């Protein structure tokens, strides 16, 4: 079993199941009839991928989805961090807003879509609102926790050195809360990504991976759907990886736990 541990062996083993699935897929598509509609032959998927890339459609879609997700992440993340920090520092605010936040959070995120649709229509503002909301929830929670669990010991040191409240906030509270705030950002990214694609699917859009998937479903074009899924997966992975790297850099002062 020692041979399992070499990187090459691991890669090969990891590929076995995906390759088998691809074979099974191809076999299904060869059966013709209704099967061929759903199980599009792999070469067609490949051709569609190339065509989509060449025509720029894929890039267009990817950029649209990406910009929505990132914008929503920034808006919702900033708002959420501000509220979470404020709630952690002000008991009265916590008492009033806390229950409201928890109540609102119980509603499945995309369950807000019809309501937002009635209020704001289904254009870009509506989508951005939902995505920001998706990013908002986890950042509020995590930044609240982050500030609340700042150790009193560090605050005492700040007092000994005569720090004003503002200085305590900038030099102690924020840096100490940063790990949890960043955790919130990572979660917010995941939620924002899901929300972007889901909203695009329901509301439709000029460009966007989710919108394209919705249209492709109506046209029964599995190949386009698969290409879009691939793009969504790669983009999602890249975003996740970038945030993780940013987090590692900002938190380089933390001891490494193995």
């Amino acid at each position, binding site marked *: *079993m020692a041979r*399992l541990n070499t990187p090459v*062996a*691991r890669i090969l*083993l*990891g*590929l*076995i*199941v*995906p390759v088998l*699935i691809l074979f099974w897929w191809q076999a299904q598509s060869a059966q013709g009839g209704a099967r061929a*509609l*759903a199980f599009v032959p792999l070469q067609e998927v490949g051709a569609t991928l190339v065509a989509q890339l060449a025509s720029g459609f894929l890039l267009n879609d990817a950029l649209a989805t990406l910009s929505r997700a990132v914008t929503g992440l920034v808006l919702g993340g900033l708002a959420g961090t501000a509220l979470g920090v404020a709630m952690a520092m002000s008991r009265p605010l916590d*008492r*009033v*807003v*806390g*229950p*409201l936040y928890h*109540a*609102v959070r*119980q*509603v*499945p*995120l*995309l*369950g*807000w*879509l*019809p*309501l937002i*649709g*009635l*209020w704001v229509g289904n254009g870009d503002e509506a989508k951005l609102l939902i995505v920001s909301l998706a990013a908002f929830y986890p950042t509020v929670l995590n930044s609240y926790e982050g500030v609340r669990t700042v150790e009193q010991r560090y605050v005492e040191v700040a007092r000994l050195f005569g720090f004003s409240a503002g200085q305590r906030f900038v030099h102690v509270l924020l840096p100490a809360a940063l790990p949890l705030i960043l955790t919130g950002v990572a979660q917010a990214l995941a939620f924002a*990504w*899901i929300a972007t*694609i*889901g909203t695009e*699917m*329901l509301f439709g859009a000029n460009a966007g*991976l*989710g919108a394209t*998937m*919705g249209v*492709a*479903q109506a046209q*029964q074009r*599995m190949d386009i*759907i*698969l290409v*879009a*899924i691939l793009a*969504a*997966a790669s983009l*999602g*992975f890249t975003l*996740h990886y970038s945030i993780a790297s940013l987090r590692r850099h900002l938190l380089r002062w933390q001891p490494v736990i193995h």
Partner: protein
Amino acid sequence: MNHLTRIAAGLAPLFGLLLLWQLASASGVFPPQVLVPPSEVGATLAQLWRNGELWDHLGTSLFRLVFGFLAGAAIGLAFGTAIALSRLLEALFAPLFQAVRQVPVLAFIPMLVLLLGIEERFKIVVVAVAVFFPVALAAFDGVRGIPKSYFEVARLYRTPALPFVTRILLPAAIPPVLTGLRLGLTRGWLVLVACELLAADSGIGQMMEMGRQMFRIDVVLAGVFVSGLVGFFLDRSVKLVERRFVRWKEA
């Protein structure tokens, strides 16, 4: 503050909001398109309750949720435990698992619609997929987290397989698994509502979407309230079970 006072303090802002909302819509500043007083929402809810529509939708949604959850959780538990116990299985399946995990379940909906149609089967599968990932992960963590010493002691005493699993493995792995089940349940509910919004002819999600298309904001708000309530109860009930197990564990 004792327990009752705390609940009251928690509910007070909610009642405050309801009051504000009632006053705001009564003032006539907002058109009925945008804001409908909570009293009207309540009336709609009561009506839907009486004529059975609410129960139809709710029942259908819950039916899908329960079956999807059971399927996804069972497969997730089996899968997670298997790859935690066998290095070979882990090497074979973990990479694919991690890769597919990156894709939001919602993104699979169009694909699954083409493969399965939009019957009940499709929705149950979607819920099962949504439940599968967090449960599998939790099972993996739970089993991997069992100290090696447990295994060694079991081998020393030549404990046969089944008692080992039920008396040693399961209790040690249960807390993280319960958390995973709770996460799976809430995620399943989330995905189900989304799924019903997008591709269904019944269920709470579909009720809301219809409300939107008919510009019946009271129906939409009723749906929002019900879906939130269900989400709350699901979360709470599993948390209660978790707490009971934690207490037992500490005993």
